[in-house]
């Protein structure tokens, strides 16, 4: 049966070609740009070089932005988890015939542009809006407003990526055999103990996927900080990349270096996280 040994490679080829062209090539390009130098006297032009100065700039001048990216993304991930887990649990175990409707409702925001939705949030959270007034009356506002604060940015990130958290958790919970939960209660575990010792560990793959799908794009997001945040206090790495790439003449290599650093930072954090909470042994 030696005749068909080439077949797997033929089947793999389109996928590999796709990856090479649309993933690997841009990545290599990005890495090479991140090492280019500005052409002296010609802002906006570059020449090939190995210029680590871009990385020095990226790390030296934008540390606060990296810090905010990680912090806001982590906060959004925590809040999204806190909101999404009960939601996914309810859909998976309590929704009954409403289940499909609820799933559609969770996914419905995807039907409109998330930028438009974020702009809508700016109106909802406006100073004269219901939310800001109510919180103001209750003295729950840190300052005089919600928009242009980190609260709005984190809230926006949480909202934007909530479905990315809820759907994997739902998928994870939905795979949990209800008989295992029954077995837990049969074996002297109360409702909460069963949840803690059976349901939660079994839904960990979904939780892991959900947190990654939330944290990674949230750390790279710039739309929420742009539309809901302030000028100097809440901008994230994504905003700097956008600005360096589009608006700063000659900022392209720094933007590339920022992207590479962000990618590396996320990889390291995610790697540590998966190592700590990974559930490889799960079937």
């Amino acid at each position, binding site marked *: 049966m030696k005749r068909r040994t080439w077949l797997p490679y033929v089947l793999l080829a389109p996928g590999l070609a796709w990856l090479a062209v649309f993933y690997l090539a841009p990545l290599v390009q990005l890495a090479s740009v991140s090492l280019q130098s500005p052409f002296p006297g010609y802002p906006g032009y570059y020449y090939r070089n190995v210029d680590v100065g871009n990385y020095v700039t990226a790390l030296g001048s934008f540390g606060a932005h990296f810090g905010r990216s990680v912090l806001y993304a982590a906060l959004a991930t925590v809040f999204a988890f806190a909101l999404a887990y009960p939601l996914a649990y309810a859909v998976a175990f309590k929704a009954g015939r409403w289940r499909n409707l609820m799933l559609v409702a969770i996914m419905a925001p995807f039907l409109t542009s998330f930028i438009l939705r974020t702009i809508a949030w700016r109106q909802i959270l406006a100073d004269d809006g219901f939310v800001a007034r109510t919180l103001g009356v209750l003295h729950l506002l840190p300052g005089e407003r919600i928009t242009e604060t980190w609260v709005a940015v984190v809230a926006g990130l949480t909202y934007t990526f909530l479905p990315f958290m809820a759907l994997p958790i739902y998928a994870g919970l939905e795979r949990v*055999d209800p*008989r*295992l939960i*029954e*077995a*837990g*209660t*049969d*074996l*002297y*575990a*109360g409702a909460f*103990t069963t949840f803690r*010792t*059976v349901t939660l*560990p*079994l839904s*960990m793959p979904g939780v892991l996927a959900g947190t990654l799908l939330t944290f990674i794009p949230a750390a790279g997001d710039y739309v929420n900080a742009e539309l809901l945040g302030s000028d100097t206090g809440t901008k994230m790495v994504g905003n700097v990349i956008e600005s360096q790439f589009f608006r700063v003449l000659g900022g392209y290599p720094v933007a590339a270096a920022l992207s590479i650093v962000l990618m590396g930072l996320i990889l390291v954090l995610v790697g540590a996280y998966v190592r700590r909470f990974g*559930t490889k*042994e*799960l*079937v």
Partner: protein
Amino acid sequence: MRRNRRSATGGGGDLHLQALTKRFGSFTAVDALDLRVPQGSFFALLGPSGCGKSTTLRMVAGLETPTAGRIRIGESDVTASRPFDRPVNTVFQSYALFPHLDVRGNVEFGPRRRKVADAAAQAQAALELVAMDHLAAARPAQLSGGQAQRVALARALVNRPEVLLLDEPLAALDLTLRRRMQGELKRIQHEVGITFVHVTHDQEEAMSLADTVAVMNAGRIEQMGSPTALYDLPRTAFVAGFLGRTNLADGTILGRDGDWVVVQVGAHRVWLDRARCAEPDAPARSAVRVGIRPEKLRLHRVALGEEPPRGGFTAALGPATVVDISFTGVSTEYALDLPGIGGWRVFEQNLDIEDEDLRPGDEVVVSWDSRHAFGLSGRDEPASSSATEEDLVGAPGVIR
């Protein structure tokens, strides 16, 4: 959280179900069930799927709330207790082992929740009991069906419950393994002395394992008793068909002859022991159904001039035509067509030295000792009419 903690020896008692009822909407799954399972017995609930046996089990486990009725274990009423408050443990169908815990973790789960001091030692003992201690570190996914079955048993037994519930525990195993596990179950039950309530649709499994078998149908217990009693004297056509095979013939009561009821079946007269009739006082002219097990019948070759012995209480029907013959080693099974009565089956033990002499199409007469026949209500419907194909695995049903 309140937990009932009790040892295997103290405070035990019978499992007692009183008028236990469960309705799902308009469907009555369990209908005013009364049942007493003596402490330490091996009890089987047998019936086709949908008969309410699993629902009954789940109510005892606390996983379903009864619509009405009471559940008592010894003196304590557990009807309203939560599952984790009951001295009851379950071996689930397809085991429901926790995939994220290893075998030891699974078995220790119960003791640890009960905050038992020597959980590890108890788990070890339970694993030894089921001969699974060598795989304590394995994950459920790495176990074979039989091994998983043993772990599930150990996980339940380690808690020393008053009552152990087994929900079709062997259904997922292949035939050989099932037979072996049946032996194991019996041994373990004998060793631990805990009340086992075993739910199954496999009549052979129920009969070979249990001290007492209750046959359930449509939410009610049709008949309960020792396997031999149930087999020898089924009280309903359902039980007759669900446990082993039965030949049935519809007849009319002609009258009484001492302790015997005389019945007209077609052109023949047969006799039923009054004590073996479901309705011993049924008046003349009323309908009755005569039942007789295939192995209790004898064949007489018309071509050889054989005739049933006359006199005594030998009953006979025939002539009948042989439709099919299947040789199974220990016995030969004949399918007969009795005109006006239906298809019957006869098992004849292979005692004869000479070759098989009957051929399909040959004519025979069947006879039996009337003491073996039993009488069922003429209005009674046999099991095969309601049971699905799956339910009849291992339960050959009725021949008419």
